[in-house]
């Protein structure tokens, strides 16, 4: 009875949705959407892990498997990560700048567009088996001999909805940084933008006359990552329109020539855009979040702050010029691009991310002794994730090694999954645990033990899965391929066991959160706020 009461009302009934401001509700909506999609991704990931142990084609035909594989990273990045990150940043930017969000209404629209768009492309893929993978290598997305035309149209429309939401996020963030709210002194737009983009930080590095930063470091990181977000959405929207042109022509019975689009040029621009996520905004947003969490946890100033600001700017420029490491096995790609962009510029990521890693650790170290709270332990897990995944990425971005690693399980295991699952996701969990009492006006976590189960299952599962995938990759196992004769069975069994730990960790977390806020509380988050305030928190 007590359990049911807690399930409905939350731990000690402390969470009261009526007390939430519109800003808190908006942010929590993003978090709920993001966590639900994370659960879907974890579940589908586990289905695929099991399939790689034993492909049960009678139950799940390969067409269905590849539809899941296509949606899996997109739901993970857009539905889950974008939702949580957008929600957190739409809250943090006005909170840190001590002025209201430019538009809460648009903020809620962004949540709907990202969440709704994700559902549209996931569902169309699941039903029609539209499966060109997230890479969309030309002309596969327009190959209607293999894929449903209408499935493709709905799929691309879903992605487009997410991108529209992303564009609105970019506008809302930059307008919030630069606009002048009613009753406030006129804001210096140019100086604010200069500080947000890192120009003032650079000036301070070389000038004796050090000027105060107009925006805090986390806001600067958000602004710089948002530039990449904007460029990326432009590339994806452009590519989507191109594919839609082929689809609409096919609807009217016209088969446009695939050769009209150069496959190599297409691959270059698309990877340029994709890398703005993978190597741009992820690393910048993550570094910014590390800095914010380290200063919040310790209450101390960030170590080497000006260098950290400059490194974020360098990372942004690096992220515009690294895409060629994805084309090292494309023999038509010019060698100079492979060496300069693919190898040399990519190696800069070891430096920029290494700096962020070091600065965060030193900031934490300076405040010893720290209590091992949930935000701290998840932050350390996130740091370890990138500590493992970034060097793995640098290794594969070498012309010699890429020849024997490209498209193997090494790429997607020790690099991609360890970076995303351990590095990025544990950083996000750290922020979620930190912000939980802030956003819920003091709600209490149902169980610390479950939080510990969440931490260890996620950490060991994520690293273990990446490691076993990597071992299989080094033995020659390809990604995006189904092996029917049990060629890499021991590795796949171990990877599936590790993957199941991640699922157990998420189940513990999800149960813990639901029991903390209660089912009524979750529903209440989606009801309109009764408070008429633009402030992030009540009474502030």
């Amino acid at each position, binding site marked *: 009875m007590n359990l049911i009461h807690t399930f409905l009302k939350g731990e000690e009934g402390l969470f009261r949705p009526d007390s939430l401001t519109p800003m808190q509700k908006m942010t929590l909506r993003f978090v709920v959407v993001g966590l639900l999609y994370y659960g879907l991704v974890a579940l589908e990931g586990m289905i695929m892990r099991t399939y790689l142990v034993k492909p049960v084609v009678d139950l799940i035909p390969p067409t269905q498997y590849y539809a899941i594989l296509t949606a899996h990273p997109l739901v993970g990045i857009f539905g889950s990560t974008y939702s949580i990150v957008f929600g957190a940043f739409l809250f943090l930017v006005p909170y840190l700048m001590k002025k209201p969000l430019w538009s809460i209404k648009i903020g809620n629209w962004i949540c709907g567009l990202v969440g709704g768009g994700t559902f549209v492309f996931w569902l169309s893929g699941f039903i029609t088996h539209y499966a060109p993978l997230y890479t969309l290598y030309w002309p596969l997305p327009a190959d209607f001999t293999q894929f449903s035309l209408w499935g493709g149209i709905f799929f691309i429309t879903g992605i487009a909805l997410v991108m529209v939401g992303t564009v609105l996020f970019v506008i809302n963030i930059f307008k919030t940084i630069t606009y002048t709210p009613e009753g406030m002194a006129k804001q210096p737009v140019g100086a604010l933008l200069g500080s947000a983009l890192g120009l003032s930080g650079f000036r301070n590095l070389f000038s004796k006359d050090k000027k105060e930063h107009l925006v805090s470091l986390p806001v600067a990181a958000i602004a710089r990552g948002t530039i990449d977000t904007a460029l990326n959405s432009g590339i994806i929207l452009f590519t989507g329109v191109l594919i839609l042109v082929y689809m609409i022509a096919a609807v009217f019975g016209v088969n446009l020539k695939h050769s009209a689009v150069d496959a190599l040029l297409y691959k270059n621009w698309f990877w340029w855009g994709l890398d703005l996520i993978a190597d741009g905004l992820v690393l910048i947003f993550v570094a910014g979040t590390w800095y914010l969490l380290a200063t919040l946890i310790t209450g101390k100033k960030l170590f080497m702050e000006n260098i950290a600001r400059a490194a974020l700017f360098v990372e942004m420029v690096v992220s515009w010029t690294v895409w060629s490491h994805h084309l090292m096995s494309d023999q038509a790609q010019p060698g100079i691009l492979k060496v300069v962009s693919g190898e040399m510029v990519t190696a800069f990521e070891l430096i920029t991310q290494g700096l962020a890693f070091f600065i965060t650790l*030193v900031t934490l170290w300076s405040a*010893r002794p720290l209590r091992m709270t949930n935000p701290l332990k998840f932050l350390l897990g996130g740091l370890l994730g990138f500590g493992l995944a970034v060097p793995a990425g640098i*290794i594969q971005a070498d012309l010699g090694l890429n020849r*024997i690693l*490209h498209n193997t399980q090494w790429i997607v295991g020790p690099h991609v999954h360890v970076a995303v699952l351990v590095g990025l996701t544990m950083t996000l969990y750290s922020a979620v645990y930190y912000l939980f009492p802030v956003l819920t006006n003091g709600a209490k976590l149902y169980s610390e033990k479950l939080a510990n189960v969440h931490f260890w299952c996620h950490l060991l599962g994520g690293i273990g899965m990446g490691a076993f995938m990597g071992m299989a990759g080094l033995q020659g196992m390809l990604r995006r*391929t189904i092996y029917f004769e049990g060629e890499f069975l021991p590795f796949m069994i171990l990877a599936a066991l590790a993957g199941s730990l991640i699922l157990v960790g998420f189940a513990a977390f999800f149960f813990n959160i639901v029991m903390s806020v209660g089912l009524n509380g979750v529903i209440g988050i989606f009801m309109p706020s009764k408070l008429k305030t633009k402030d992030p928190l009540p009474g502030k």
Partner: protein
Amino acid sequence: MVDSSLVLFGQTLAYTLYALAIMAVMGWFGYRVTKQGKGRDIKPALFYTFVGFLVLAGVSLHIITHETIPWKPMDLNRSAIKADKTFSINIANQKFILPAEKMVIKKGETVRFNVTSDDLTYGFGLFRTDNSMVFQMQVLPGYVNDILWRFDKAGAYTIRSTEYSGPKGIGMIEKNAVEVVE
């Protein structure tokens, strides 16, 4: 020529040691950060030393592989290298169209594979009988995708597509299509 399996063994060893070291460091840090410190600040000199180490690590990796992995400089310079043999392979509709005669190579020969695609983006990889990879490249439509390789070990090698080309592409395997003889 150094075999790709040897390079992969070296990488496995190096990365495993690194992974164990970074996990140990983070474990140690997690333990010590909860203990009372001696109040010593970290000096900027340590920070700049670390930056120098990162620069050194990033640059030296590529220089070392250039000097030790033979196919790396060979690939960058392949248009100027004359092959002992050239094989042309076409791919269409998720099917490899191999030369009429079996591809037989003498040990030590340098071979060029020219691979073209009539429709989609594919991959072209050569694998040993234990499924480990010898090499791979991408095959883009509209281009002649070529790779140069020197074979130093006799044996039979299987071709398979290393890039996803839709569910129809999962069967793109040509077992023992290449034979290297003494």
